């Protein structure tokens, strides 16, 4: 019953998006010609796929790029400006000018700038734009994926909580039966052993949210069609924010002993204490930094490998390579499915470990 309503709601959500915004189909005959003549560039393809974008690229059909436009939200000199990314007409070269509120915007390599006097981009010697740019709070592909993941989490876990009420507050029914082992896994295998029986409860909501958000984010990246395929977790900014939150929680949970261990390590001679303090201080920052890089690198690497395998077909220019590519890519995809869960586990586990170190009460004195 709950599963049914969940599916209905999810469908409704998708329908809302698709019906309100609609797909923008753009003809790019000129680009198409250029593309076919151009040498196939695997690096560019891969980089394009793993980078954030202002629109959600769905498919290319007969050279027509079908994209799902996403809102562009700019904080400009004259205040807030919003428009759909489709107004750029897929231009990413700084040629198409969008005029809003008396301001002209151009887009170059997914960065939106104020257009210069001539309605274009001024490039410096290093081929970087010299134009000023407004603050960009656009709902990009990754932000969209983040919304989707967050919505899915609410749709999964609020019914899960309700399912306990139906089971007399004791046994979950329906979706709860499915989710409970995962929640208990986070509690019994991540939070309890690392933070400790006494203090783990306060950190459970954070650990659960992080675990499932990263896991769902990872899995979305493995689903190769709209509205998924946007990978939250291969964006270093997302993993960075996650790591930063873990960092902040860790520091604010730190007790006297935690700081004592950092600035005045007990049990070693004084000169060593002085040497250890800066090392430990750097350690505070390297731990979440490693968290950020680990998740980002693992997920990105998986995507690059899969994309590279498919690129082989175009590099060799023959369809005969495709069985090999598809076979390996399938294997990689299955492996990535494991990595998706594993990295979510590792991130949560290490977060719990760091928090555990910060709140630990040592017995040796």
């Amino acid at each position: 019953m709950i599963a049914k309503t969940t599916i209905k709601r999810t469908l409704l959500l998708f329908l809302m998006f698709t019906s309100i915004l609609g797909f923008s189909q753009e003809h790019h005959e000129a680009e198409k010609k250029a593309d076919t003549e151009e040498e196939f560039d695997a690096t560019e393809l891969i980089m394009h796929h793993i980078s954030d974008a202002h629109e959600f690229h769905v498919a290319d059909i007969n050279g027509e790029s079908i994209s799902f436009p996403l809102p562009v939200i700019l904080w400009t000199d004259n205040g807030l400006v919003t428009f759909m990314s489709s107004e750029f007409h897929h231009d990413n070269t700084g040629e198409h000018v969008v005029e809003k509120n008396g301001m002209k915007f151009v887009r170059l390599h997914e960065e939106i700038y104020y257009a210069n006097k001539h309605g274009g981009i001024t490039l410096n010697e290093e081929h970087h734009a010299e134009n000023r740019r407004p603050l960009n709070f656009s709902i990009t592909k990754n932000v969209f994926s983040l919304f989707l993941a967050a919505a899915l989490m609410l749709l999964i876990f609020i019914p899960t909580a309700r399912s306990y009420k139906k089971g007399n507050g004791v046994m979950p029914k329906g979706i709860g039966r499915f989710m409970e082992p995962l929640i208990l896994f986070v509690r019994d295998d991540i939070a309890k052993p690392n933070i400790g029986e006494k203090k783990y409860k306060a950190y459970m909501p954070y650990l659960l949210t992080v675990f499932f958000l990263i896991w769902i984010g990872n899995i979305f990246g493995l689903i190769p069609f709209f509205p998924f395929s946007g990978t939250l977790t291969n964006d270093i900014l997302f993993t960075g924010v996650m790591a930063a939150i873990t960092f902040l929680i860790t520091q604010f949970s730190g007790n006297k002993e935690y700081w004592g261990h950092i600035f005045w390590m007990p049990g070693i001679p004084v000169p060593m204490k002085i040497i250890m303090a800066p090392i430990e201080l750097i350690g505070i920052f390297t731990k979440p930094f490693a968290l950020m890089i680990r998740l980002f690198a693992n997920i990105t690497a998986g995507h690059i490998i899969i994309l590279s395998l498919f690129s082989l077909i175009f590099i060799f220019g023959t369809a005969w390579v495709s069985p090999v590519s598809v076979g390996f890519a399938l294997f990689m995809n299955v492996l990535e499915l494991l990595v998706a869960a594993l990295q979510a586990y590792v991130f949560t586990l290490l977060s719990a470990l760091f928090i555990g170190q910060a709140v630990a009460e040592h017995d040796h004195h």
Partner: protein
Amino acid sequence: MNITHPESLIFWTVIVFVVLFILLRKFAWKPILSAVNNRESKIEEALEAAKKAREEMENLQADNEKMLAEARAERDAMLKEAREIKDKIIADAKEAAATQGAAILEQAKAEIESEKKSALVELKTEVANISLEIAQKVVKEELSDEAKQLKQVEKMLNEVTLN
């Protein structure tokens, strides 16, 4: 990959994460975890109660066995006592019978003795009487015929045998 307009994803990640965290904590994690905790404590209580009941059962059984053993011991003791009493009664009875028998025998003997004595006395009296009669007759005969009298006396004396 190029990092473009980092502010957008950072901004939205922070917003979405915080909102998601607050919503999930209130509407999902807390109810779920408290329900699970409730259930676990209930299970623990039930197990504890079952353990207690089992212990009580065992205690009861032990008590029962103890009582049974006590009853058995009591019964054995009672039987033993009864046997002893029986033996004693029999012994007493035997003794009493023996004493009484002996007494009766003694009495009988004494009676016989006394009977005998009285019989002897009676006999003596009888003998005396007979002797007196004989003497009377002898005296009467003597008075008539001395020789005959003597003969008579002798004859009579012969007749009277002293058993």
